[in-house]
Each structure stands twice: as structure tokens, then as C-alpha cells.
């Protein structure tokens, strides 16, 4: 019997594991995807080999790439961009770590408070969460991103549309800033040469491959790889908790272990989580393991699926409902000058529009740029439109780019600049991720199904997207773009949240304000699904990790007789040399 079993080793699960392992609990982490223990050799960092949605090494599927990916029932058209493996979707992520917008919290009383999704606020104040934000920001650590050419071009555009710089972690007015991100700042030869090596180079080497997994600088210990995806930060910490935390106990990790059921028993008439069943993928043995506390951290799609497959109660019908995805869009500008879009950090600059969302600059190698430019809900550019309600928003053209249009836009990958439009979108009952009904089954049970009413979003969501798309077009023109194209993406679900949301109101939430499942005892949720809303258009992971830290403290104090440890203390950084040494010992 374990103290705690954590299902999923992505953005949230390892945070819970690290905090509780540091307190000396017996923690087991089960991850359905690959281990990725040797990234320098395992990750080619090539567009298709890494990012192909069905066969790439970053996909949702078992580690054996000759086997098909896990199949979901998806809305049409759409694409869900997640990764199964130790690190989860943070393997892909750009490590942007803004705090949730101030108006998404209970008690916010600013003059713009009505601009937010006021029916679905976080069930606590920003002041309550601040110490946990600070704790995670110091653990990862989070700092302002370094600037390269594409950031300079982006900032020129931001200035050109009248925005002012605002470095604040909690912006309350429109402005631009370097991303607060969790990528170690460049030191030594990093960012200065093409072939940097640790220890001469430290931190980000500006290689441009955040999307293909960060294994740079070469030869650096795992916890000193630049990008703080959890595989490089919280996972090394959870595995070495005895080395850096007095009384700590290393968490145990099993990869390729897919949990198919949360086991419950009735205690005092209340369903109570007591264990899990899992299978080694793709066709290995089945196991059952018990624990005092079960934590679901499979992400905003798989957590509601597992909930359904475990026949857990759904008294208010909100399981899987209220999925937010930021209703993303993409605007690209073509320049006569070098923009450096394929180089440097994939996303290091942003503009904030509190109450509306944000726009960030994103750069890629050519394959992913072309992927982004051929994905549209608006038909082929220059041909018939597809009935989408999106407008040109001032752009020269809209829709999928193919043929001469694609060749011209892509003739110089370092002569384009991309804007990712990230609206603050509403929690809506209609949008959901659930267990497939009626059942279509894979080896792990009935598959997940996603419904996203893309063309029927709330008026606020739609208007925020149009507002931001127009700002992106203006920004690119002000930066000097010769041609601006809007994609009008279908759902590209890479920020997925709030499908098992926390809230004050039991009639429209699954978790209470401590991320504990209301309907099941001893069961907590520690991934994006428990977020109360879409974080105001802020990239979600930092907020998830801060809330998970708060929940870890709650579990320790409520169930294991511990004392709180966050307020008034400073955390050990994930870059600590004790972690590097202990990881070396594990590898040896």
C-alpha cells in the first residue's frame, strides 16, 4: 500500500510527486507513454520525425512507434496536440509561464472586472495563490526570456500600434514584454556559437528546437538542460528527493504504464478511491496497486475519460464539460528582412490584453510553419470560403495556403513572423472531453471523445478572437510586413483546460477549491483539467503547477499530519547540483 499514486507524468503530476516525495511520502507515478531517458540520442529534433501527429516521437501513443497512436474521437476539423511520455505535453511546450490574468480570480474588483468570464472564476483570490506562484517560479526557475531578432521585430510592431512595455508579472493594462519563461538564460558560449557544449555553454543555446524536445546544451546533466519541461525539472527532483530534501524519499516512476481504472470502495456511504489498475503498454501485464490517496493527472482529455471508464459519479453532469482551449488563431507576416523565425527560443515575446487575451510570437523550423499555414477552417485561400464566421480582420488573405501561395510565403522561413492569437475564452457547457459513448474501445478502454463547438463559441469568445486577430494584423504591418495572412484555425487544442473544473459552486464544478473531487473521497486532480477557467488567455501550465503545489500541501496536512511548507520559505531550485549528482548516480 502506497501513500500516493499519481496517474500521469506531464505538466502537473510531477509537481505533486516532487512536493510529496520531498515530505517523505511513498509516491508512485504511472505514465502511459515513453520514458525518454536519453534525449540527446533519442530526439532527432527533425520536424517530421519529432512532430508528425501519428508517428512522431512526440505523439499520444505508446513508446513503440511501430504501434498506432492512441485513437480519440475528435471534432471535425480539429487536432489535439498533446504528448504522452515522461514530461507529457511540456516536452513540446515553449515554457512560457505568465500568471493567470488578474480578473480570473475571486474577489478581483478592478474597473475591467466585467470583461472576464465572471461566472467561472477561480474559487480563491490571487493573493491566496501568489506564494505558490512564487514557489514554482523559483523552483523551475522562471525569468524574462532572452531577445533575438524575431523578438526585436515583434516589439517594433508592438510599439508601432501604440503599446508600451510592461514587465509586470501581473499586467493590468495593454502592453508588451519578454515572456516570463522557464528556459535557463544563456550563459558562456550559449547563444553565441553554433556548436555549444556544457560546461562552456550553459542554459539556452538558441537552437530553435523547443518543439522537438530540449536536450541542450549537449553533455549538460538532465536537470541543467535549458527548457524546464518537467522531464528536465520536476521529474529529476521527484526521483532524487532524498538527495536534496532532508527526510525526502525518491518517488518511483513506471513509464508505459497506462491506468485503466481508478478503484473505489464505499466508505460511510461515500465512494472512496483506494487504488488503480494499469497495464504495461501496449500489450503487457495488468497490475493493481493501492494507495491512501489517488491523484489524477492525465491531462484535460484523459482525466475525464478515465473518470468515465472508472464509473465514478457525475452528479451534476459537469464531468468533462466546460473544456476551454483558447480558441487559438494564427496570423503570419512576410518581410523583406531577416526575422530569424527558425532560430532562438520558439516563443520569447508577448503582448497582453487583459480581459481579451494575448498575442505571442512563435518561431519554428519550416515543417511546423507549413503545418500551421495549411491548417484552416476557412477553406483554401483564394477559393470558396467554408462558412466560418471569422473575418479578414484587416489581413490580405485568409485560409489554407497551398501551391504558389505556400511557396511564396515559405520561400524564406527566416523572413516571416508568426503571431499566435490566444483569446480569453469562456467556459461553456457544450464544449467537452468525455469517455466515448456509445463505446469505441482501445486497449485501455472506451476512448476519449472531444466536442468543440468551434463556430458557435460565446459572443465574448468570438469577439476576443476577432479583436486579437485584428491587433496581430496591425502589429505585423507596423513591424514592416509586406503581406499579412490570417489562418482562421480550426480547433488546435494545445492549451486544454477546465474539463474537470474547480469552483465554489457545486452545481457547475467537479473539484472543490482544493482540487479534491467533490463526489469521491481521497481523490484529487492535478492537471490542467482542474483549472476553473482558461486563465484569461494566459498559457496555463504555471497556474496548474502553482495550484498543484497548494494541493500537495493540503494533502500532506489533511491526510498525513504534516505542516505547510510554502509560505515564508524558499524552495530548492531544480538546477541544484545535488539533483545533478543524484541523477548521474541513477543513470550509472
Amino acid at each position: 500500500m502506497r501513500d500516493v499514486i499519481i496517474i500521469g507524468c506531464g505538466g502537473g503530476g510531477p509537481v505533486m510527486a516532487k512536493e510529496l516525495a520531498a515530505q517523505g511520502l511513498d509516491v508512485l507515478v504511472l505514465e502511459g507513454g515513453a520514458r525518454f531517458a536519453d534525449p540527446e540520442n533519442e530526439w532527432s529534433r527533425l520536424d517530421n520525425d519529432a512532430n508528425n501527429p501519428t508517428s512522431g516521437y512526440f505523439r499520444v501513443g505508446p513508446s513503440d512507434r511501430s504501434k498506432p497512436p492512441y485513437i480519440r474521437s475528435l471534432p471535425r476539423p480539429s487536432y489535439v496536440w498533446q504528448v504522452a511520455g515522461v514530461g507529457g505535453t511540456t516536452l513540446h511546450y515553449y515554457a512560457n509561464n505568465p500568471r493567470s490574468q488578474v480578473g480570473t480570480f475571486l474577489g478581483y474588483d478592478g474597473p475591467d472586472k466585467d470583461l472576464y468570464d465572471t461566472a467561472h472564476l477561480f474559487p480563491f483570490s490571487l493573493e491566496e495563490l501568489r506564494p505558490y506562484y512564487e514557489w514554482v517560479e523559483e523552483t523551475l526557475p522562471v525569468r524574462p526570456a532572452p531577445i533575438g531578432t524575431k523578438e526585436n521585430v515583434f516589439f517594433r510592431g508592438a510599439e508601432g500600434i501604440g503599446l508600451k512595455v510592461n514587465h509586470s508579472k501581473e499586467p493590468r493594462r495593454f502592453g508588451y514584454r519578454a515572456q516570463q519563461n522557464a528556459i535557463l538564460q544563456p550563459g558562456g558560449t550559449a547563444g553565441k556559437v553554433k556548436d555549444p557544449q556544457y560546461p562552456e555553454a550553459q542554459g539556452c543555446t538558441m537552437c530553435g528546437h523547443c518543439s522537438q524536445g530540449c536536450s541542450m546544451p549537449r553533455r549538460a546533466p538532465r536537470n541543467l538542460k535549458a527548457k524546464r519541461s518537467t522531464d528536465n525539472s520536476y521529474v529529476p527532483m521527484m526521483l532524487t528527493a532524498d538527495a536534496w530534501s532532508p527526510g525526502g524519499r525518491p518517488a518511483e516512476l513506471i513509464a508505459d504504464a497506462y491506468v485503466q481504472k481508478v478503484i473505489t470502495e464505499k466508505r460511510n456511504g461515500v465512494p472512496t478511491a483506494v487504488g488503480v489498475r494499469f497495464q504495461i503498454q501496449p500489450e503487457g501485464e495488468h497490475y493493481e496497486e493501492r494507495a491512501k490517496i489517488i491523484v489524477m493527472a492525465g491531462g484535460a482529455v484523459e482525466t475525464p475519460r478515465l473518470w468515465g471508464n472508472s464509473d465514478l459519479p457525475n452528479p451534476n453532469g459537469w464531468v468533462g464539460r466546460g473544456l476551454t482551449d483558447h480558441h487559438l488563431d494564427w496570423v503570419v507576416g512576410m518581410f523583406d528582412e531577416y526575422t530569424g523565425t527558425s532560430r532562438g527560443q520558439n516563443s520569447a515575446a508577448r503582448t497582453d490584453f487583459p480581459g481579451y487575451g494575448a498575442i505571442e510570437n512563435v518561431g519554428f523550423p519550416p515543417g511546423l510553419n507549413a503545418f500551421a499555414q495549411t491548417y484552416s477552417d476557412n477553406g483554401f485561400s483564394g477559393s470558396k470560403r467554408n462558412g466560418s464566421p471569422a473575418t479578414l480582420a484587416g489581413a490580405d488573405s485568409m485560409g489554407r495556403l497551398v501551391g504558389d501561395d505556400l511557396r511564396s510565403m515559405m520561400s524564406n522561413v527566416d523572413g516571416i513572423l508568426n503571431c499566435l492569437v490566444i483569446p480569453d475564452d469562456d467556459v461553456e457547457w457544450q464544449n467537452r472531453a468525455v469517455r466515448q459513448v456509445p463505446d469505441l474501445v482501445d486497449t485501455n478502454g472506451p476512448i476519449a471523445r472531444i466536442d468543440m463547438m468551434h463556430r458557435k463559441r460565446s459572443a465574448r469568445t468570438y469577439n476576443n478572437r476577432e479583436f486579437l486577430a485584428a491587433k496581430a494584423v496591425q502589429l505585423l504591418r507596423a513591424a514592416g510586413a509586406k503581406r499579412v495572412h490570417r489562418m482562421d484555425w480550426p480547433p488546435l487544442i494545445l492549451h486544454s483546460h477546465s474539463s474537470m473544473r474547480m469552483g465554489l459552486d457545486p452545481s457547475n464544478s467537479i473539484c472543490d477549491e482544493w482540487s479534491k473531487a467533490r463526489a469521491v473521497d481521497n481523490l484529487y486532480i492535478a492537471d490542467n483539467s482542474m483549472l476553473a477557467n482558461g486563465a484569461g488567455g494566459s498559457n496555463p501550465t504555471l497556474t496548474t503547477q502553482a495550484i498543484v503545489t497548494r494541493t500537495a500541501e493540503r494533502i500532506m496536512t489533511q491526510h498525513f499530519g504534516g505542516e505547510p511548507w510554502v509560505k515564508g520559505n524558499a524552495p530548492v531550485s531544480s538546477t541544484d547540483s545535488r539533483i545533478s549528482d543524484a541523477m548521474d548516480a541513477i543513470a550509472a
Partner: protein
Amino acid sequence: MSTPPVALERVVPMGTAEFAGSLNLAVLTHTFLALVQAVGLAQLRPIFEQPSRNGYLPFAPMSPHPSVPEPPGQPPAPPRSPLNGHSRRAFLASASAGLGLLALGTVPVTADAAEPRFIEDAFAGLAAFVLPGNDAYSKQQKKTFPGPGGVAAGGGVVTRESLDIYVPIQVGEKILPAPGALGYAIILKTITLSVDPLAVFGPFANPFANLTWTKKRTVLERLEDLPILNGSTIGFSANALTTIAGLGVYSERSSFDPRTRQLTGRPVAWDYSNYGGRSDGWPEFIGYLDGVTEVPNP
């Protein structure tokens, strides 16, 4: 670390394992059933309604995905078949061949679907559409570019490989080759014949590749619009075909050895996108905005 320690309690499978063999068959069956329904070929239905060898009924009807509602303010479009009378027969022949393969795993493939180039030509035709070049497929579509294009870049290969792994066919112990791509090659052919029946005459084994560029676009638009694919597990991939090809035509695939997962040279797509190539680093670090390297807490 990845093998479960003995301390864990092994249990007997819960009954999901027996579904494994029939899953992919079920998924592909959805595709074909959707098309069958689209063209009113009800006579093919009984084939799907047989329980599979594993005792799992592969076709479980799904409630439709409501995610692509009609645009606001417009009356719903009348139901439309992508096929005319002539091509219904062609579809029946192709679909039967596909189904024979799928459901039985043994039936020899008939006519054009058996052509070794039937699948390759479909996806090379798609790659040439997404990025024309100086290849034969681009010439056939009457839209070319004086230099390598999507075909040379391996865009067709990427699309085919992606579909095959996404929709492989596994019947019991047997895994049949190229079925996902075969399914889509048949779908592309079928819609092609509704756009231009004369496309059966041409240099390529799949009529889609014999079309002009503009007609290819019409075929892909019809594929995107086919309402019958709503609610199928592959509906999203029908819309993603062009996007996967987009990734492919700008990817490393022309110079990538899938066995070693190493580059064998510089990919052509890197030349025509003026890409500096994969690197461990770039001298791109200029400094910090306003020199700010740390932001104080509020």
C-alpha cells in the same frame, strides 16, 4: 526503472485486451461505412454488421459530432452525394476491394487498387498539389515550378506513412500492409470520379493524380465538406490530409533514413525554404528587453 517491481500485484486482464485486435478494424470500418452511407450503397451494410472474429461488433453507430454547424443565418445545405451514377459503380468496385482486404484479410485486390502505384500516385498527386515542382505530377496538374517541389521533398511519403500508422489493419494476429493509405487512396479516387470521370484516363494509377490543380482543389473541398464523415473517428484526418502533406513537403523526409533515423544529406525542403538547418545552437542572443533579467514580485 520501467519494469514494474515485484511488489506490485499482477491481476488478470479486465477484458479490454480482447478488443485490441478489432479496434483498428472498427475504426477503418467507420470510414467505409460513412462513405457507403454517403452514396447510398446500403447493400454493403451487412458486411459491417457481422461480429468480428473476436466477438466484438466492429461498427457501433456514433451520435454525430455537432462541431461543424451550418454557418449562422443560412438554411441547412441540401444533402449532397459526391458521386454521380457512373462513379457509384467505380466506388462499389473500389470499396469492395478495400472491404475484402479489411474484413477478410485474404481476398485478392481487384483492378486498380491492386496497382502498386495506386496509393503512391494518390499521395504524390497530393504533394504536388500542396507544393508544385518540376516533377511529372506537377506537369500533369498543369501547375509547375522550375525546381523541386512537394513530391521531391517526400510529402507524399509522409502523408502515406502517417495514414498507415494511424489506421493500420489488424485482423486477429494478422497485420495487413498499407490499409490506412489505401482507404484514403480509394476515397480520393471516388470523389475524383464525381468531379471528372475522364480522370481514369491518364498516366497515373490513381485518377486523383490525373486531375488539373484546380480540380484537385475541388476534390479536397468536397472531402472537407462531406457531412457524413462527422462523428467518425477519422473525420478529423480527412480534413487534416492537406495539413499533414503541408508538414511533409517542408520536412526532412527526402533525406531521412527511417531505419537509422539519421539524415542522409541535406533535405531539398531546407533549400527551398532557405532554412539554416538543424543546429545545436545559433548566435541569436542579442540581450534582454530594457536589460531586465529579473522581474520583482508584485
